[in-house]
């Protein structure tokens, strides 16, 4: 695969921790069900369902379906330090004038 000339297209990289083993015995389906319910209730915002995520990962680790990891390593606590702002509004009808800075940038 020759992606070297177009650096914006990256070749697919393998996952950091590899592949999840398959849950044939459906041991963690309940935990996943809880997480999905939480997502539906919270307008699909993942930051309100961190506890369910942790519960699911713990279920996986306990049943030998995932390598054991400290919860801190996933960075669940780091996200609390961030400030959440609104996304910058970009008017899609704004014309692009050649030579000027791109729309959507603040510089």
């Amino acid at each position, binding site marked *: 695969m020759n992606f070297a000339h177009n650096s914006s297209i990256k070749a697919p990289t*393998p996952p950091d921790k590899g592949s999840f083993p398959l849950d044939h015995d459906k041991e963690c389906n309940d935990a996943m069900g809880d997480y999905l319910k939480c997502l539906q209730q919270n307008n699909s915002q993942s930051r309100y369902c961190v506890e369910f995520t942790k519960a699911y990962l713990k279920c996986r680790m306990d049943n030998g379906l995932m390598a054991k990891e400290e919860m801190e390593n996933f960075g669940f606590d780091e996200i609390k330090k961030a400030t959440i702002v609104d996304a910058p509004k970009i008017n899609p009808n704004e014309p692009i004038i050649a030579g000027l800075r791109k729309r959507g940038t603040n510089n």
Partner: protein
Amino acid sequence: MISRFTKQILTNHYILNGGKLSYSNSIYSRNLIGSFNNNNKNIHLKSTSTPLSLHTLYSNNNEPFQINRYFSSNSSNNNNNNSQEEKNNQSYEQERKQRVHEKNKSTAMWVLTSIVGILGLSYAAVPLYRVFCRVTGYGGTVREETDQEHKKRNLERKLYPLTVTFTASTANKIPWTFKPSQSSIEVLPGEAVLASYRATNNTDKPIIGVATYNITPMKAGSYFTKIQCFCFDEQRINAHESLELPVLFVVEPEILDDKNLGGITDITLSYTFFKSNDQGELEEI
């Protein structure tokens, strides 16, 4: 009484023949140029009337202006002189042949060793290349990591949420039903997010499939880090079995700083399941 003309011819012949009196050569029958080649090996006479004479041009050892007369014994032993010449010629010949032969032998040895060397190098290159790939991981070689260092992301910054949409598809005529469990999730960059897909094997036989993924827009792909997923590995689903396939991923916070992406807010993750070519070993788990 020799006329002046023939005298001149004789002296010229004397000089051209290297000062040797060889009455066996007749003046007219012998080719003078031929005699140059034959007799030049033994000619040490260099001085002639002109600095650049045919003599010095045709001689093998070029020592111009050197006066070194070789006089065969000025007697009537011309036959002996001739045989002596021939013997010297022969030994000279032999010596030269021997030198050439030695040179040929050494060249042949050199060529042979280089051929053997290159062949050996090409055979040795296979394990060497394997070692090189294993150490550097060039070209995506799988490397074993015993202790993985966890990337600490600096999240003390402003973030705004992105929407990640999930799509699923099947290809290569795999008889599975494959869909995401949630259509989209609002994600903060830097946060580890869990997503889930569900695959159902609708047939009576266990089938092995392989999944691959794609991120749209393309430029956002470099900021999408999968912690753990079910891609690139052969996954086997038993007959009439439905499986939960989770994905744990992080969107890097640097995506918000990238000017090329220009305030992007939507990313799509699409998974495609292919039927694996290797449907072989069907073992009971």
